[in-house]
């Protein structure tokens, strides 16, 4: 008995301590005066120069830099940020006027040169920036790329003709003009993308250092330098004269695996976790439903038709295949509702993109599918191959697509998911698919054109199905040359209607952003274009 006594005291003391602690936490917690620190899940960025095109990099760049424009959180409409105006009379030559008084963190002014130099640097071939191709519509881009001397081979490529693009001209300290190789009404929307942020002279003078410790011009600035594979920390920047961020600092904690991130979220180490492992999705959505935010995102998954294969050139056959697939069933049964069935070819979040029910051929209608297949003269025979890249979890759902086609249309199928991603992409580039192929798309800028021309335009850069239709090209062209974005949308929608009829690809679904947040976070401010607005998150304590 005696031995146990001190234990009792300890228990009692703990109880009192817990009680006291309980009383304290019972009162309303005060919001931190400096906004507090937001801990965000991240993966290792590919780079912190504006030439990086991967989402982990862009997530950080968005807070460090400010571009000419940004986007309205609800409507996705373009709002001027650093730009006073971006105007053009012919949609080809654009005059950009900058607001005055914005500075980089090292004290340099943001001038016309900051933009021109940055864009030239990103474009210049030998700098090997993934965003280089974003500049490809600016006149003079080709001169900044080196040409292969002997077609292919290990020989050192010669220096490009020029380090600068002739389409960028400085007018005065705060004005410059951009000349495009085509008319494009959506140009002001494109420059909100991270690839078009300005860079300081000091940054371009030592790019290696700047990649580790960027010199930004945005709401936040670097706190220390990039700790590789550990974290990137940013704090409120005093030199930013726009609207301040609500959190005092943001720590991007870098993980290699989302399973580890999930464990750390469960252990209370993360305030924002947006990469729920697919295997944990069902668990997470029921366990943490009070701190879960979901919103349709813009990432598009499709099954492409290899239209270079004669079997797939019959439009009725393509329609039949599309109508025989029950997208919602796949989403519910295999993905537990992680996606939103596609009702068109463009993201419903975009201006002019939300037209529910517009895609008559994206619905599930097996009877009509059978009839159309009969009209098309039946399936030419042989197995229908469905391609997907290996090791990315595509085997299961593509097999269900195959099962549905077999059940509804009697077409035998075969899944080919053996190629690793690089080789799979190479097969796409080489146009060597022999059946339906899975691919995806993420928009480059919030203009419907980004879902149309690159994917389906004749000779489009990522037109993997080799679709070519003059009528479609014309509508996109008319949209690009339209006077206002609203007028342009009408043409883009007409172009989309052609896709609905022709089905160069089977639209499958759009992604959903699934964000888990900690109890310390008041809610998720979400921008339909750029995702979670980390700067506007509010913390309780």
């Amino acid at each position, binding site marked *: 008995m005696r031995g146990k006594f001190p234990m009792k005291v300890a228990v009692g003391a703990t109880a009192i301590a817990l009680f006291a602690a309980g009383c304290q936490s019972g009162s309303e917690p005060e919001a931190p005066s400096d906004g507090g620190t937001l801990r965000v899940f991240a993966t290792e960025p590919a780079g912190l120069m504006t030439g990086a095109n991967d989402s982990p990099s862009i997530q950080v760049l968005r807070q460090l830099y400010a571009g000419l424009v940004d986007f309205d959180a609800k409507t996705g409409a373009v709002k001027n940020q650093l730009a006073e105006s971006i105007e053009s009379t012919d949609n080809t030559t654009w005059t950009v006027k900058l607001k005055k008084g914005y500075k980089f963190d090292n004290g340099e002014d943001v001038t016309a040169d900051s933009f021109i130099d940055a864009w030239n640097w990103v474009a210049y071939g030998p700098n090997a920036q993934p965003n280089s191709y974003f500049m490809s519509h600016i006149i003079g881009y080709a001169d900044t790329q080196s040409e292969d001397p002997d077609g292919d081979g290990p020989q050192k490529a010669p220096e490009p003709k020029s380090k600068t693009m002739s389409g960028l001209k400085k007018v005065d300290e705060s004005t410059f003009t951009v000349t495009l190789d085509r008319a494009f009404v959506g140009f002001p929307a494109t420059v909100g993308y991270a690839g078009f942020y300005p860079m300081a002279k000091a940054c371009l003078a030592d790019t290696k250092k700047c990649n580790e410790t960027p010199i930004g011009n945005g709401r936040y600035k670097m706190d220390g330098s990039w700790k590789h594979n550990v974290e990137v920390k940013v704090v409120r920047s005093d030199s930013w004269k726009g609207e301040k961020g609500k959190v005092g600092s943001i720590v991007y904690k870098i993980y290699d695996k989302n399973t580890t991130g999930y464990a750390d979220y469960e252990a209370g180490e993360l305030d924002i976790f947006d990469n729920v492992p697919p295997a944990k999705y069902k668990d997470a959505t029921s366990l943490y439903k009070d701190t879960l935010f979901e919103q349709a995102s813009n990432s598009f998954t499709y099954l492409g038709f290899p239209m270079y294969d004669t079997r797939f050139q019959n439009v009725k056959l393509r329609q039949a295949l599309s109508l025989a697939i029950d997208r919602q069933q796949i989403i519910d049964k295999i993905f537990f509702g992680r996606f939103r069935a596609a009702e068109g070819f463009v993201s419903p979040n975009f201006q002019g993109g939300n037209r529910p029910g517009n895609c008559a051929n994206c619905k599930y209608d097996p009877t009509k599918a059978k009839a159309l297949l009969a009209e098309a003269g039946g399936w030419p025979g042989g197995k229908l191959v469905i391609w997907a890249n290996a090791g990315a979890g595509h085997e299961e759902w593509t097999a269900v697509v195959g099962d549905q086609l077999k059940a509804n249309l009697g077409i035998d199928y075969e899944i080919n998911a053996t190629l690793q991603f690089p080789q799979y*992409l190479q097969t796409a580039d080489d146009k060597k698919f022999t059946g339906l192929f899975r691919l995806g798309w993420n928009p480059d800028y919030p203009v419907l054109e980004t879902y149309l021309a690159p994917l389906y335009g004749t000779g489009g850069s990522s037109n993997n199905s080799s679709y070519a239709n003059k009528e479609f090209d014309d509508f996109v062209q008319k949209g690009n040359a339209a006077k206002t974005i609203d007028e342009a949308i009408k043409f883009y929608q007409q172009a989309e209607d052609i896709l609905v009829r022709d089905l160069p690809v089977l639209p499958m679904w759009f992604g959903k952003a699934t964000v888990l947040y900690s109890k310390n976070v008041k809610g998720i401010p979400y921008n339909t274009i750029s995702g979670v607005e980390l700067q506007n998150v509010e913390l309780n304590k």
Partner: protein
Amino acid sequence: MGRYVVRRLLQFIPTVLGTLFLLHYLTSMAIQFGGNPVRSLFGDRTPPEEQLRQMTEQFGLGDPCLQQKGNPCFGLFWERMQDIFLRFDFGQSLAPRRDVTDVLADALPYTIKLTIIAFIVEAVLGLAAGVLAGLRNGKFSDYVVRIVTVLMISVPIFVSAVLVQKFVGVKFGNWLRQDLDAPEWLGRGLFGAAYKAEFPWLSLILPGIVLGMLTLASTARLTRGSLLENLRADYVRTAKAKGLTTNRVIGVHTLRNSLIPVVTTLGLSIGGYMAGAVVTEGVFRVPGVGFTILKAIATGEPMVLIGLTTVLVLVYLVLNLFVDLLYAVLDPRIRYE
């Protein structure tokens, strides 16, 4: 002794070159059969051919032999070896784009820390458990050690790492943090679910224990067996007969002789940690060498793999040599000439 060391050092050369060639061949084949890793940086977007070619060249993957399936790429290997050993240029990683030497310099300290912790866990706990079991042969504590070590050996590290993370780091840790209001260093540092920069040593202890667990078991078993054998040896009986104290008989005579095989496993287990670290570091987000290798495998970056493995192979070889030399210290009968 000196000549022996020189001979062993010379043997390093074919070993290192052989290992690196194997690795070079495998990574080259991965590109030949799996495709150009630079292409996947662009994902669904088709990059302009010119841009792709330029970047491929910059990352040292432009050699045409990388497009011929099965080609061992001797020329490329020769170039790479020259770069590594003559110019100390280990190439660049793809994303983020950095010198492999920098990547390595960042990663090594973590792995060294983790190795130290795992080694201490293994050596101290393993030896203690082994000696205990050996001295109490057939008694309760012996059975406990034997059963626990069998359990440890039979659970693969990727299972134990995930289980420890889930139940110790998350569940137990949450109980500490939320219900007991444990201090930061205890709740978040020691019993966290992953590595934290704020607790550079504390948060490595849990992964270190997981890493040391596997070899801990074999060390304990080996110590126990070796001790039992020596306890029955003639010289021990003689020592006891001479009237030496038990402490001296066991502490000085028996233990020293029993440790020779144990030192071998201890030394080699440091090499084993490097392999185990691939799993442990991956699970616990320790940005060390294993973590980096895992990432390089996933993205298919030959230069990172070759660079990091060169260092691992060297570490392994040096440790091996060190262990061999240590024999002579422990056992006067062994001489190197």
